[in-house]
């Protein structure tokens, strides 16, 4: 299979304009003749559905939550990047492109990344016009702060609730289109399959979560905006219901899955306290602007942190990376935390924690200034841990947070299945092997507000004469298959709950395919996962009935997909025999412990094709083109 990214053969600075000027568009009179399905209502899905509706298309929006406003984009705290150069500190489109490519360890697609940087400033303009209350300075201008991996201040924020405010902006635009009748929303509805007819994606099969009814919806194009798969680890910073199901089922219908092993482990999360915990809470990266990360120099030092004098504190990031200090990229910060903890310097009973300390920032700027900047994060931490971070340092440890891998898409954001698009976290395209902070909100909104609405016309024009509705026999066939799969989950009637399998899988993944990986562990995981999957299909016990509101059944379906997906993730991690960005293979490190890339063998996107049940995936590669920026060894020292 040849992977055609459809990027025009011009310098990256001209690629997007050249592309848009050369593709087909659908005129305003014809747009109401097309039906588009959007699955997922986070930043990417909501912004795409609102934009497409406003353009005149008929849109159906699906989400499993009770309202589109609850999608997990809402939990993003710190901010959104844009190269406005408001701080006059040398920022530019090129600089944002450079930082993103370097941050992603040169495993992103140059033209996509450049387009993202180019679009970033428009996003801020759009959001402000919608009423997103980004923080302002006293003079009334927009405020900025700094995030990891960069030397400029380009992050826009709304307290610690940036994701919430951006999502509400997109949600409100969406609800306006609902009121105008251009978008119909289907909350509490989960996608179970895509329907392909003559090789094109022509609709989806869904389950109404309230009644259990299986329904089909036809369309001229389907857009997946269903987020990432961090919950393959069970405990992550994702919402408890986030899952890989929509992406995985599209994958099983032919959509390639790219770079599944690229998972971002976020350095600043509240450490695990017990086995029954369902999720991990992130503390925004913005805290690293003013907080200093350290561990005691003496192993097992159980003095209160305040009583440990300066010279006995090991500020390991500041010492190892003098130019970026506490603001190194996430993968570097996470690995450094893992290293000090593995070396025995970790905090508390578990030994899996490091301090993030505001003592010096409070002394310099005053408690009030810190409260204004981070107040809600401090409160949140206090609520969860009963410790007051104004008095004693935060305790943090890395946790799975974001997945750079996802469905393979071309420059139009279409997967290799014609008519099936993937936007936001569910696609693979823009962050390479590691995403910089405050860039996921940027990518979701670039995709949803500006890129997809302009590129989708190119495909739609092409299928103008081929109307299909739900009466086509393929729809019934797919609906029956979905129903049969649900029956098979219900009928196992074994002795283990879906959650117990998710926990066990999560442990396998965290131990064997977590922050650092090696061939031996990955091979072990590739034995453990199929065995666990086998047990799942003989020992699962789902409560309740299939024709009712049944959260046990919802979870069972998601865990079934995670059990298949996890194997591909480990396979990809094994195949990528180099270290790059988040993906650290212990076999490939420099003497100082930093990742050692292999650009000769692995400067490509690994896109996996599903062949069939119990048949090995086939690997396809898309060579990465480094015309504008030659890969160098990433250094943050």
């Amino acid at each position, binding site marked *: 299979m040849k992977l055609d990214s459809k990027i025009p053969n011009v310098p990256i600075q001209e690629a997007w304009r050249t592309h848009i000027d050369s593709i087909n568009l659908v005129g305003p009179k014809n747009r109401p003749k097309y039906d588009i399905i959007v699955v997922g209502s986070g930043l990417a899905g909501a912004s795409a559905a609102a934009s497409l509706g406003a353009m005149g298309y008929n849109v159906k929006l699906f989400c499993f939550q009770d309202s589109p406003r609850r999608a997990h984009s809402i939990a993003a705290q710190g901010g959104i990047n844009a190269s406005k150069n408001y701080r006059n500190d040398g920022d530019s489109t090129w600089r944002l492109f450079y930082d993103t490519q370097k941050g992603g360890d040169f495993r992103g697609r140059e033209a996509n990344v450049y387009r993202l940087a180019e679009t970033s400033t428009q996003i801020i303009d759009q959001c402000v016009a919608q009423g997103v209350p980004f923080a302002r300075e006293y003079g009334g201008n927009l405020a900025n702060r700094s995030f990891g991996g960069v030397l400029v201040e380009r992050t826009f924020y709304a307290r610690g609730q940036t994701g919430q405010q951006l999502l509400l902006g997109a949600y409100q635009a969406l609800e306006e289109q609902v009121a105008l009748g251009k978008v119909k929303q289907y909350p509490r509805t989960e996608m179970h399959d895509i329907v392909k007819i003559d090789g094109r994606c022509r609709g989806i099969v869904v389950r109404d979560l309230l009644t259990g009814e299986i329904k089909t919806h036809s369309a001229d194009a389907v857009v997946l905006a269903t987020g990432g798969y961090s919950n393959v680890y069970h405990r992550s910073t994702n919402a408890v219901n986030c899952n890989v199901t929509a992406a995985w089922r599209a994958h099983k219908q032919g959509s390639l899955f790219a770079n599944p092993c690229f998972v971002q482990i976020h350095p600043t999360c509240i450490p695990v306290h017990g086995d029954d915990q369902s999720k991990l809470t992130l503390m925004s990266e913005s805290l690293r602007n003013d907080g200093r990360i350290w561990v005691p120099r003496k192993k097992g030092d159980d003095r209160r942190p305040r009583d440990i004098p300066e010279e006995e504190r090991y500020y390991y990031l500041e010492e190892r990376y003098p130019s970026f200090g506490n603001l190194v990229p996430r993968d570097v910060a996470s690995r450094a935390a893992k290293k000090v903890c593995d070396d025995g310097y970790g905090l508390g009973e578990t030994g899996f924690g490091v301090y993030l300390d505001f003592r010096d920032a409070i002394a310099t700027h005053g408690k009030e200034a810190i409260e204004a900047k981070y107040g809600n994060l401090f409160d949140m931490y206090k609520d969860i841990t009963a410790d007051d971070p104004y008095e004693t340092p935060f305790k943090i440890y890395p946790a799975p947070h974001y997945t750079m891998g996802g469905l393979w898409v071309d420059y139009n954001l279409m997967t290799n299945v014609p008519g099936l698009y993937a936007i936001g976290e569910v696609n693979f395209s823009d962050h390479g092997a590691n995403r910089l902070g405050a860039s996921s909100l940027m990518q979701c909104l670039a995709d949803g507000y500006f890129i997809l609405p302009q590129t989708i016309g190119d495909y739609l024009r092409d299928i103008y004469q081929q109307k299909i509705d739900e009466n086509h026999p393929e729809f019934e066939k797919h609906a029956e298959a979905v129903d049969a799969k649900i029956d098979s989950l219900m009928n196992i009637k074994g002795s283990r*709950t879906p959650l117990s399998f998710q926990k066990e899988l999560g442990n396998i993944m965290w131990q064997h395919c977590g922050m650092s990986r090696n061939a031996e562990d990955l091979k072990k995981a590739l034995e453990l996962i199929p065995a666990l999957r086998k047990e799942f299909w003989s020992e699962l016990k789902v409560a309740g009935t299939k024709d009712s509101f049944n959260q046990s059944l919802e979870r069972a379906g998601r865990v079934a997909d995670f059990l298949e997906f996890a194997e591909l993730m480990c396979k990809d991690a094994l195949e990528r025999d180099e270290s790059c960005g988040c993906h650290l293979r212990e076999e490939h490190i420099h003497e100082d412990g930093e990742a050692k890339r292999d650009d000769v063998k692995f400067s490509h996107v690994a896109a996996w094709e599903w062949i069939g049940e119990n048949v090995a995936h086939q690997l396809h590669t898309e060579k990465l083109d480094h015309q504008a920026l030659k890969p160098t060894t990433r250094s943050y020292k």
Partner: protein
Amino acid sequence: MNFTLSIWRQASPEAKGKMVEYKMSNVSEETSLLDMLDMLNEKLTLKDEEPVAFDSDCREGICGSCSLVVDGRAHGPGKLTTSCQVFMRSFTDGQTIHLEPFRSAALPVVKDLVVNRSAFDRVIQSGGYISAHSGPKPEPNSMPIGHDELEESMDAAACIGCGACVAACPNGSAMLFTAAKIGHLGLLPQGQPERASRAKAMVQQMDEEGFGACTNYAECQDACPKGVSIKFIGRMNKDFAKAMLCDELDPRGSMDSN
């Protein structure tokens, strides 16, 4: 810690519900209330009993999914918190904890502790937005917004749409929810063109959904996990009154009286 949980069980919107007791033992004080419900559901599943349905997603207090009345208080003990951020250390060992759904005629029970909040979506649809279709927009700094005005707008925008205000209100009023959106958008210069029509439409939709009126109990403000102030209700009433009292003038009409 050990607890007796008394939980509202209702099989479907039409079914009659009742409180049912369950015992939980050896719960760590660091466990969250919802994680404990997960533990209970694991036990119930293994005993072939129907697990307790409840809404939750982010479990960090921002998505607004969780919606429990704990011992008679929306979102339970503690100020400025959601149900998912309640930890067992806030209870006394051995106590009975009562868990019910948010109750209001306009937010009907779907199952057990799950309610239908689609009325909130319809209130937003009626006017809770600034019309600004995607595309190039003016440079934001060409329209400075004072720091304090912006922060006040953000105070209102912080609403997570959970419905605790409705559950806490003796009248089942959604005034705080509606006022928060009207306040957020109405305090910004971008929100001015649609300010009057927004207030009018949203208040009317809120009434149509069957929410009650406000009689200044201020229970909503007390239950609000994001501390949205009832001063925004005053603001909303002012905007609404202005919108209703002023004739809808055709600005291009003639000055002649007829």
